[in-house]
């Protein structure tokens, strides 16, 4: 499964000139608002016709301006979940869900009503009207509606952007299940580091209509310079780990990672399950000796492999902890005082309480990267 996009397009003053190819299970199109990511996804869906270029999904050419190919949206078999849900107001939830069911050829109809309703937990809503649903419920129904059309690719355009934090937390697990329990590839537009770090297997970073970088989530999230200024504080290392054991006495879970054991607040998943954690650079302290008499529980030994200037008086330090890179944001003054430089042996210190719900999530199964 792969998505290839190579287009150039003009919208008044704004020019988009983007090329990327992704075979990931969930590819995030990430960038600040106005970077062109929604335009790009609309082109994949067939809602906007690019001036020039090619779009192919799984080898099937959907757009090729030089060959005069433009497959209309209703023949693309690409599901789309919009930021504003766009449920049909004159149909019940069940009517909305059933709408796309019969358009796919019988042999390619894989979605099953009961399974989708169950996956998204919307069984109790079927008889309701869209206007009577909460924002989170609407978005789940919209996801179900897109799935039931048996698409070959699912596009999600900032599906959480219009929801408050509680509603986001309500939907994120469903998107994780969708990613892990179906074989459907997903392209997910977002401007939130938290969402991308949690959900994506691959990331395409957009800036001013161009692709600034693309690659596996872990590698991209290290590059704090790629993050929009207002999201920089959210940046940091993304590690895929496993639950080793639970510490019931203190209400904690112990995760195994390449960097060593990491203690986080108790997770409601079983031992052995994959967990993805995000360690924000601003939450990491650096010590030159093994600290003692310190409340922080996670002390990871490593070697400094990168030092780059950050915003204002800060520097960003990359610490290779046995193959896993942890990022730390410290002041230039501290770096100077500790005389930190490439090759220095240090300890990365992370408080257990800095892992809140948004920073730990069901991890991607190992084969998630395409």
């Amino acid at each position: 499964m792969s998505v290839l996009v190579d287009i150039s397009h003009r919208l008044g003053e704004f020019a988009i000139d983007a090329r990327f190819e992704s075979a990931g299970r969930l590819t995030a199109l990430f960038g600040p608002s106005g970077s062109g990511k929604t335009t790009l996804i609309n082109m994949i869906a067939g809602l906007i016709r690019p001036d020039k270029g090619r779009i192919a999904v799984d080898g099937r050419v959907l757009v090729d301006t030089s060959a005069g190919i433009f497959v209309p949206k209703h023949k693309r078999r690409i599901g789309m979940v919009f930021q504003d849900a766009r449920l049909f107001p004159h149909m019940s939830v069940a009517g909305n869900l059933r709408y796309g069911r019969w358009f796919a050829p019988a042999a390619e109809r894989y979605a099953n009503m009961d399974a989708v309703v169950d996956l998204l937990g919307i069984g109790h809503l079927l008889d309701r009207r869209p206007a009577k649903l909460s924002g989170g419920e609407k978005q789940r129904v919209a996801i179900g509606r897109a799935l039931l059309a048996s698409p070959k690719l699912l596009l999600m355009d900032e599906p959480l952007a219009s929801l408050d934090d509680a509603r986001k937390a309500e939907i994120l697990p469903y998107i994780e299940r969708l990613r892990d329990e179906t074989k459907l590839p997903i392209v997910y537009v977002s401007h939130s580091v938290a969402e991308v770090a949690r959900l994506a297997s691959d990331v395409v970073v957009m800036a001013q209509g161009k692709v600034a970088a693309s690659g596996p989530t872990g590698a991209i999230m290290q590059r704090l310079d790629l993050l929009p200024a207002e999201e920089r504080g959210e940046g940091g290392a993304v590690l895929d780990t496993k639950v080793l054991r639970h510490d019931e006495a203190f209400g904690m879970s112990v995760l195994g990672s390449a960097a060593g054991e990491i203690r986080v607040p108790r997770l409601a998943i079983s031992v052995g399950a994959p967990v993805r954690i995000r360690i924000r650079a601003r939450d990491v302290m650096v010590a030159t000796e093994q600290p003692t008499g310190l409340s922080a529980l996670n002390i990871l030994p490593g070697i400094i492999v990168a030092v780059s200037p950050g915003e204002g008086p800060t520097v960003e330090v990359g610490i290779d902890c046995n193959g896993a890179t942890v990022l730390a944001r410290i002041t230039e003054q501290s770096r100077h005082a500790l005389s930190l430089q490439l090759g220095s042996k240090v300890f990365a210190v992370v408080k257990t309480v800095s892992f809140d719900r948004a920073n730990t999530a069901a991890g991607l199964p190992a084969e998630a990267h395409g």
Partner: protein
Amino acid sequence: MNWLLDLTPDEWNAVRLSIKVATVAMLFSLPPGIAIALLLARGKFWGKTLLNGVVHLPLILPPVVTGYLLLLTFGRRGPAGAFLAEHFGIVFSFRWTGAALACGIMGFPLMVRAIRLSIEAVDRKMEAAAGTLGANPLFVFATITLPLILPGLIAGSILSFAKAMGEFGATITFVSNIPNETQTLPSAIYTFTQVPGGDDGALRLTLISIVISMAALVASEVLARRVGRRMDIE
């Protein structure tokens, strides 16, 4: 009450004929009304302003002028009238069908306006969403656009019906005032006012006119409210 309902056969015929003419005019206006409203709301083509003007002509011309133009084109010897009579056996002049045609045309701009407004209010993003689910444009129109403009269709239909019930000038010019054939309520009332001792009949038919028009208005309100509740648009 007896006095009100004690109508002569000719008067009853006028009532029945008016309802028939107005209903036929409304129903036959609906498909072209939707098509023209769609064109005006969404079409981008040369001559759109001209089309808009032509559609609105019956609203601004004196009804007698519209009637006379109909007589010229759809009369026995008019180009359209002769063609339709020869090939399809449809005759408009001095028939109730002609009255329906005149009424339909007079009410057409009102109907198109109402439908056009409701089409312009439709969120086109809904149609795009239906498209991504696999529905072709025709299916999208039938399952998304039409249901969403239902309130506009009801309003436009009632306006057309009410206009037809009251149409006088174009009808009498085009198809005259023949009892049992083209004598609608307004023509019958007019006839009563022209003869000595016709006041009673004129008053009776006037009251009946008011009752029918009010009933149509109330029916449309009830329908529109029911559609609105069913849709529950935020």
